């Protein structure tokens, strides 16, 4: 299979820059896949799992905190709010974040920022899911 370059960047760092055979991206209307030779595309990305298949090696996963992708020629760039490879995820921290968000959602007293807690919960769940290999 023909390969193309996948680059995942946040403002702080380049998370991944590698030759891949395919990439599965969390689009806002559902996941979609990209293979080499895809037409030029720009797309909004949701919170979700980004999966990719390196040219020689096992598939890998990234916990993506939403962002934007652009494919042009043989280069796919993902600009993310946050992005972590599965092996980089701090499981303990994600668990704590999950617990905190759940507690916050459980006692809904006053004008707590519920939308924010829900996002935090989603992020924590996503990290745990990616870290556990699925």
């Amino acid at each position, binding site marked *: 299979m023909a390969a193309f370059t996948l680059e995942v960047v946040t403002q702080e760092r380049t998370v991944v820059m590698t030759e891949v055979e395919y990439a599965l991206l969390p*689009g806002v*209307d559902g996941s979609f896949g990209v293979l080499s030779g895809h*037409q*030029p595309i720009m797309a909004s990305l949701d919170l979700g799992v980004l999966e990719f298949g390196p040219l020689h090696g096992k598939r890998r996963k990234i916990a993506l905190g939403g962002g*934007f992708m652009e494919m042009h020629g043989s280069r796919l760039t993902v*600009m993310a709010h946050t992005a972590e490879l599965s092996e980089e995820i701090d499981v303990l921290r994600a668990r704590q974040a999950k617990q905190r968000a759940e507690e916050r959602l459980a006692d809904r007293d006053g004008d707590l920022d519920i939308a924010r807690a829900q996002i935090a919960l989603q992020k924590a769940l996503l990290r745990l899911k990616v870290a556990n290999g699925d």
Partner: protein
Amino acid sequence: MAQSSRDIKRRISSISKTQQITKAMEMIAASKLRSAQETVISTRPYYERLTSSLGTALRAAEQAGEDMPAIIRDRAGDSHCLLVFAADRGLAGGYNAAIIRQAEAFLKEYPDTEMVMVGRKVRDHFRRRNRTALAEFVGIGDTANLRVAQDIGHVIFDFFVHGLFDNVTILYTEFINTVTHRVKLRPVLPLPEQIKETKGDGPEPLYVYEPSINGVLETLIPLYVDAAVYQALTEAKASELGARMNAMRNATDNAGELIQELTISYNRARQAQITKEIAEIVGGADALES
């Protein structure tokens, strides 16, 4: 005379203690500056790539005759938001003063301005003048932190979307090199015209947009705001460390000069005392002989 030479000695020891402190602060700033400088350089390409994609999408929206998303339509209002980056601490030469001076000038020019303040120094300055901030971020540490930048970006973007103001400008210190920094005003929203003209190299491909051009723009604009804030934060932090390093180096040098001068006066005083004692002894011996 004995009194005076003891005084001088005390001053020398006090100054050299101060010198040790300023020297240490200079070295701390210098070591942090190195990594801050790298951060500044490594964030610039991200910002450029993002604005180039944003420019492409904006042109595509224009060509397709689509209505721009509500968030970036020109509102023709003249209420402003000024996001100010200053330091949490002083001892950085004119770093904070320069930023505050520029902020005051901005407020004079655009009286209808809400402020978002980063850094204790700017907050304290305006608090003394009874000007409150819409939001303030203090105690954020010496290194630029992406999460802090994203928090600031979200706050500003939310306020902007809710129509609290029509324009957003960032005031920060641009980092040129370790000794040169420049106070800079950078308009962020509404999107500056030049972004639409930003092009990547080579011929422009015909993109498809998922879910739509507007959908992509609505994703890109908050990313762009975050990127502008983060970049300003990294530059401000690097400039702050540079300014502190230079200020502390000057302080250390001045302390060295003072010590040198005082050492000379001390030696002179000591010499004078010895001369006086010899004169007294000789005088005493003369008196005995005669």
